[in-house]
């Protein structure tokens, strides 16, 4: 996702004179091409995230389209007040791009994990939260974010994630993308869990359960239409995210559900537990630790699906 972001940004730099890239002293070599082509429109703000966000907001107030880029955990909670006041309160079009979302940088320790960022940013008025599912979505999300008029947070993974989309999907902020159709259960995935969702759907298929996979790349605003249809059509809806079960996609969907009359489908939220991971291990290990694996997703979906197709299901059916 990281390389796709840099490549698309360089392309967009040529299309949009007002595009400016701000970096918090990361991305060594990553933006070489961009810097070579647009040296005046690159600013290394140093290891000073609060200032970087303020600078980006000031630029946006003067008509530029700044994209502020650094590690996920530092571009969100480290400078939250600047995001809240300089960007959101003033409602200026700043794009925050965080790299290393969720457990991407698991091995670096919890200082570099980012499992609270969706929750923290989606509560800010005027903020849009986009978590692309693969490199193709990263490119489309960045393009869409620049067309969007207000603040956008783009949550990136790292480099080398599997590509899920084979073609170019229709991408619209606030509209989920159905990656694979299905009948029984629906897996709503946000961000870098999309490949896991596809694997889980494969496992479910082997057990005779048909699973739909949706990339819910936008957590705010939620795709109301898609959720309404999903909770009506399926027996089971599972949300997947490399983020806390509190306040992320699962939390958002649970809130959505709480405001509506009982729906047919039951919700299962899969994400990280309410704890810091305090041991070494790379992303695969961390995902295993928190149950963010295709096997666990499939098992959870299967459990809920069998419950709803048993007698108890009549309680929930219309």
């Amino acid at each position, binding site marked *: 996702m990281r390389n796709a972001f840099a490549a698309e940004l360089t392309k967009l730099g040529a299309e949009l004179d007002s595009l400016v890239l701000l970096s918090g002293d990361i991305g060594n070599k990553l933006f070489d091409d961009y810097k070579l082509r647009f040296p005046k429109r690159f600013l290394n703000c140093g290891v000073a995230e609060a*200032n970087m966000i303020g600078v980006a907001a000031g630029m946006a107030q003067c008509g530029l389209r700044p994209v502020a880029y650094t590690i996920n955990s530092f571009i969100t909670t480290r400078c939250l007040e*600047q995001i809240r*006041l300089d960007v959101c309160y003033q409602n200026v079009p700043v794009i925050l791009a965080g790299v290393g979302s969720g457990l991407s940088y698991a091995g670096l320790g919890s200082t570099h994990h980012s499992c609270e960022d969706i929750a923290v940013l989606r509560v800010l008025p005027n903020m849009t939260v986009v978590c692309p599912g693969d490199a193709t979505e990263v490119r489309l999300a960045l393009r869409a974010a620049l067309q969007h008029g207000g603040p956008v947070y783009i949550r990136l993974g790292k480099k080398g994630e599997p590509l899920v989309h084979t073609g170019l999907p229709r991408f619209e902020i606030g509209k989920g993308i159905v990656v694979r159709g299905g009948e029984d259960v629906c897996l709503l995935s946000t961000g870098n869990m999309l490949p896991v969702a596809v694997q889980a759907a494969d496992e479910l298929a082997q057990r005779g359960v048909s699973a739909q996979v949706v990339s819910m790349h936008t957590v705010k605003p939620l795709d109301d239409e898609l959720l309404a249809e999903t909770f009506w059509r399926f027996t089971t809806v599972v949300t997947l995210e490399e983020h806390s079960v509190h306040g992320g996609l699962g939390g958002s969907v649970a809130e959505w559900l709480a405001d509506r009359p009982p729906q047919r489908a039951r919700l299962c939220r899969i994400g990280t537990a309410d704890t810091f991971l305090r041991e070494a291990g790379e992303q695969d290990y961390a995902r295993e630790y928190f149950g963010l694996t295709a096997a666990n997703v499939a098992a959870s979906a299967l459990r809920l699906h069998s419950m709803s197709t048993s007698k108890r299901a009549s309680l929930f059916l219309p």
Partner: protein
Amino acid sequence: MTEVPADGCGLDGMGVGAKYGNGGAVKGLAEDRALGAAGGEHRAGIGELDAIARCIRGCVVRMSHKARTAHLASALSCVDILVAAYWAVLVIDPARPENPARDRLILSKGHAATALYATLAYRGFFPTNVLDSYTVAGSPLSEHPSPGRLPGIEAATGSLGHGLPLGVGMALAGRLQQYEYRVFVVMSDGECNEGSVWEAALLAPAHCLDRLVTIIDYNKWQATGRSNDITALCSLREKWAAFGWSVREIDGHDLGALVAEMQNVPDGTNKPVAIIANTVKGRGVSFMEDDNNWHYRSPDAGEAAAALRELGLE
């Protein structure tokens, strides 16, 4: 209780604005900039600035009294800075507040909002009777400046340490877009406690932002005590110089010095400019001067009347 209207200092708000304005639609900002650089005669003289400053102080006292709001002394502290900037330095046109070529002033010490509101009203950005609505439910004038509610307010401030990073961004944008505008950021000394101030202070000289100016309203007080007791601020002059800024230290109530130093930007050093304005908190009202109780207190009717008498406005 004495009814004290916000507008009552004998100066016609729009008139003051128009008199020292940049000629509205007739003249362009580029032309004004040339005039300003040449010390054009449309700029107010010191005597007039002093009268305007007294008028603004009167407004600030009335607003604090009527609304019973805090931060009166902080507002009085920076009135001269704002008056010098708005009537003698800034290249602005109140009729075209969004002109991209305009000079910008960010009141980063947003708790002094009454001083900014009165200044903008009397400079002609909006009618002076709007000041009467200060803090009234539904009014655009809250205790700290809200974004997008009134022309002339360049940034939503109130939480300290935000103005300078915004100013750095505006100055960089100006350079990139080839404008000659300058960005003035008015901060308090207490605000220099905030780490984000020093993050911005490090970045600006690295990019030789010589059209960026920070003016520190150095009244030696913050909310609960002497600023130099709470953190080791001294010497502000040496700190800003060490960070790579072109530093000047002046009497922050000397309108002539304020005008001279603010007009001297860029100053040929290729550095951003830090003007340390030594001020007195509560300036202009003898019984408020250097008395930090007036950080939070608001004057009752008797105190407001006494203050206005001292300002020659009663």
